[in-house]
């Protein structure tokens, strides 16, 4: 395969080989292609293009899917994944005092 490249996947820098496609990346990460959305450099990539879109050095890839959630928000306990584009650190919310 091609030369060594660095890409950012869900906020983590990873060493990769030049010329790999998004489909290759998902396969390598053992992520099923259905039910995921992929953004490359802030552009959403159509699922039909996963197999043809080649990744380049410095690309920022975001892979997202559905998780449990209702009328709730980050820092609420159940949503442990960080927001897109944000560092992977937990955002503690101060507990509100009991009112009853």
């Amino acid at each position: 395969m091609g030369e060594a490249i660095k890409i950012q996947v869900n906020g983590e820098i990873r060493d990769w080989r030049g010329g790999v496609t998004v489909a290759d990346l998902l396969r390598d990460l053992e992520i099923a292609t259905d039910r995921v959305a992929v953004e490359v450099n802030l552009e959403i990539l159509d699922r039909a293009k996963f197999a043809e879109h080649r990744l380049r050095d410095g690309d920022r890839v975001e892979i997202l899917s559905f998780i449990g959630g209702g009328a709730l928000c980050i820092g609420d306990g159940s949503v442990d994944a960080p927001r897109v584009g944000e560092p992977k650190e937990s955002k503690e919310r101060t507990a509100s005092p009991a009112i009853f």
Partner: protein
Amino acid sequence: MTDDRLIIAGREFKSRLWVGTGKYKSFAETQKAIEMSGADVVTVAVRRVNITDRSKENLLDYIDPKKYTILPNTAGCYTVEDAVRYSRLARAAGVSDLVKLEVIGDEKTLFPDTAGLIEAARILIKEGFVVLPYTNDDPIVAKKLVDIGCPAVMPLAAPIGSGLGIRNPYNLKILMESVNVPVIVDAGVGTASDAALAMEYGADAVLMNTAIAGARDPIAMAEAMKYAVWAGRLAYKAGRIPKKLYATASSPIEGML
């Protein structure tokens, strides 16, 4: 109640109880509670896939998208840009144009930023989304959302996860009378009577998460909510008696000794 269908943007829903999928102890519990609630619409959030722990199970392995309408939300979005971005990602990850649009204004209250909400809704509607906006119990904002093309509105009863019940029943009633689209009361329900009350006021559906997931026995509470929503809906359709200050005898005076 089977003929009493809720229709939003041409989609027909059997259940008037919609549920969230957050805060449960396990996917198995989520699945059981949703089953017990009878809900056919479930909300989900869109987040990064965990790429380091690949063993993690997927929520949709437990909640069959063929059986339930998956309603992605934009929870956690504090700007118009974020809400629009997450909506597009949800559409790319899923199969429909439905989105429960949240533009949160403040971390402490999680109250909606209604100005941002209207702006984001306008952008998404133009892109073909079916936007169900999480909004305040403000009739004017609700009317604006309907005017720009939202096929339903989702006003809060109280802050998300607070369990405070309906804090402003009169505003909510005015809101329901102000718009000609389904009104789904979303957030703030604490227990079954809150859900029944929302339906008695004339809500077309109720959406909740914490009230079920946070109960000591979520599966039993899911069942309680199912009956509460039914009871409230039936009472609303049956038409309650007016409130009066003094007694009115229900047994006849005639025939007394």
